[in-house]
């Protein structure tokens, strides 16, 4: 144990003293902050541009109302959309060709073609170079929709003054119910779940790579046999993994301090600079989420750490390791691809099964816990399965590591690795 302690100490000090660690620790939260706050600030601060939209109104009765209603404003108070009417011509095909050219030459951002039967049929066409700005499309679609519905109702002889009230949209407020009661949730749960899962994902990758690089360094510098003349291969592996875990905890602790002070003071800071941001609400996070985050980080770290250590022991260079890393990378990437699915249906059978698979569990179970606390038996089950898998992995990788670390030259085949595991 004393020897493992020496190895832990060496690993820890060697990494913590490097410039890379210091820079990474400082840059981590800055980057995180940037990822979260920059899009938010951009949306708060940016003025946006006016858009010129042509309208071909074959009904001759919609343009005016649409022009009046589509009155979204930019931050500087100007109209966002400037509508230009184009009278329908006898040859509609030629007019459209003409308008297409205008769009391509940027004298129009887009044009709207409203056919004569739109009030009965209900389909208009929006033509532009790009049609992926969903806010814009929703603005136009909803406005057009309400204008046309109003027309329909007028035709039915309803009181024009009451129509606005009849077609008023119904709002939907999202409220999350927890044991503590009701709480309005404006997407904060999603944001927190997403951030925590991404941190977990990135650090598992990151610390795994550090472990692997360390093992490869010991192997290529040929120091490993000198060290093994004092302790068992397993002690060396354990010391390395634990030492780097200590590095991880140091980094997390620093980040947590950053994070808590940021959530405490940053809002007032942002609001004082941009008064428009006062509507933004930082979601409150129940403390158990952080406890589970630490638990799943530890479990994920050991699961993947042993994996990375074994791979490092099998190869002679990081380049050689790339191929073997493929399955590990897949295990980490697949749950990230499933995030949206699990957030949408955290208690579906599929999500439950996925979150019990040990290689996916750290990320997906944490995600489920963030979104909607699953039954305790499922959380305990996934932790239990993870622990079992970790013990199995330690046993298996210990055997691979013990042989691999002294093998130089050709990368072993799968059959050879199976043979290594069988050695006495």
């Amino acid at each position: 144990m004393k020897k493992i302690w020496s190895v832990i100490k060496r690993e820890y000090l060697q990494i913590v003293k490097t410039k890379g660690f210091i820079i990474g620790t400082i840059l981590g939260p800055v980057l995180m902050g940037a990822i979260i706050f920059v899009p938010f600030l951009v949306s708060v601060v940016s003025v946006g541009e006016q858009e010129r939209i042509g309208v071909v109104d074959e009904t001759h009765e919609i343009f005016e109302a649409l022009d009046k209603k589509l009155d979204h404003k930019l931050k500087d108070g100007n109209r966002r959309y400037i509508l230009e009417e184009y009278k329908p011509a006898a040859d509609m095909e030629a007019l459209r060709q003409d308008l297409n050219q205008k769009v391509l030459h940027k004298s129009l951002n887009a044009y709207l073609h409203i056919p004569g039967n739109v009030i009965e049929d209900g389909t208009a066409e929006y033509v532009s170079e790009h049609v992926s700005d969903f806010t814009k499309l929703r603005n136009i679609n909803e406005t057009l929709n309400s204008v046309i519905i109003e027309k329909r109702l007028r035709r039915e002889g309803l009181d024009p003054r009451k129509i606005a009230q009849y077609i008023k949209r119904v709002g939907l407020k999202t409220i999350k119910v927890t044991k503590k009661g009701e709480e309005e949730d404006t997407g904060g749960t999603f944001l927190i779940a997403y951030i925590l899962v991404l941190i977990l994902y990135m650090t598992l990758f990151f610390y795994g790579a550090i472990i692997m690089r360390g093992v490869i360094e010991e192997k290529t510098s040929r120091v490993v046999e000198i060290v093994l003349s004092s302790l068992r291969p397993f002690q060396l592996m354990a010391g390395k993994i634990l030492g780097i875990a200590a590095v991880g905890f140091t980094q997390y602790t620093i980040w947590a301090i950053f994070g808590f002070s940021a959530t405490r003071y940053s809002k007032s800071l942002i609001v004082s600079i941009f008064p428009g941001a006062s509507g933004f609400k930082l979601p409150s996070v129940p403390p158990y989420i952080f406890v589970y985050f630490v638990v799943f980080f530890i479990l994920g770290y050991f699961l993947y750490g042993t994996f990375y250590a074994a791979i490092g022991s099998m190869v002679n260079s990081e380049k050689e390791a790339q191929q073997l890393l493929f399955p590990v990378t897949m295990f980490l990437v697949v749950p990230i691809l499933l995030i949206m699915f699990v957030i949408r249906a955290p208690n579906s059978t599929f999500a439950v099964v996925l979150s019990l698979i040990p290689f996916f569990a750290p990320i997906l179970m944490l995600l489920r816990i963030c979104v909607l606390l699953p039954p305790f038996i499922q959380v305990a089950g996934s932790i239990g399965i993870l622990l079992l898998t970790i013990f199995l992995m330690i046993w298996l990788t210990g055997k691979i590591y013990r042989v691999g670390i002294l093998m130089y030259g050709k990368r072993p085949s799968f059959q050879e690795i199976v043979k290594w595991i069988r050695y006495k």
Partner: protein
Amino acid sequence: MVKMNALEVENISKSFGDFYAVKNLTFNISEGTIYGLLGPNGAGKTTTIRMVMNIIIPDEGRIKVLDRKMDEEMKERIGYLPEDRGFYPKMKVGELLLFLAELKGMAKLDARKKINSWLGRFDLADWKDKKVEELSRGMQQKLQFIATVIHQPELIILDEPFSGLDPVNTKLLKDIMLEMKAEGRTVIFSTHRMEQVEMICDNICLINKAERILEGDLSQIKKQYGKNTVILDYEGDGCFIKDFPEIDRLDDYGKFMEIRLKEEIDPQVLLPKIVGKIRVNKFEVREPTLNAIFIEKVGARDEKDMVSH
């Protein structure tokens, strides 16, 4: 008083798949001697040493170190210099030695004192706070010697210690080995360079193709081969000598020849047959060199193998 055995290796075998790296190997080393483990490349020397160090576990057999069964605790009483050796390049010299000394169970204070005295002795004191990667190759080799003996091991195991050393470091290492012996410690080293063995070894074990083919006291082994070897130091074209019927083996180095005569042949008959044909600077009758024995033993096996395959 009967001397204790520093190392007892009894019938150890190790195979990797179908390949025997070491087969039924037995040898004993008594305390306070220098022991040479010889053999061509790939004979199984490194595997044997790794088994002694408990880095590889033998399939069969028994190893006793310093009169105890080899286990992890015994590693603290052994100093080991592996064949493939290097250090953590980014560590400082002093930190590295302290780390290695701690792994050998030394207390920090004691380790620091020893590190300073060894660094001073090898003119490395100024390098203590430099990174290992900044040291020259020769300095790194000195560092390796220090790391091997810093904890005053009772048994020192050196795998191919002389390979890659310049003459200065070769002498330094040889002096350390003799010093260790004088202090009553035991030294084992593997090599395929016979000159060094002849100079410093008390006993040897010759391994070829995983098996022991010769073991024992070096001077006695040589004696067994009798005094019918002639060392000839000459000038001129000595090619004709190899056709003499009295000759069993001959190694010609151009200016120097080691001639092994057939049994019952008196070396004196050789001399008149060469005088006058080449210039003879030296004609010495002696025991064969270890090099000749090595080549004969290992070579003979190879030839036998060729026939049987």
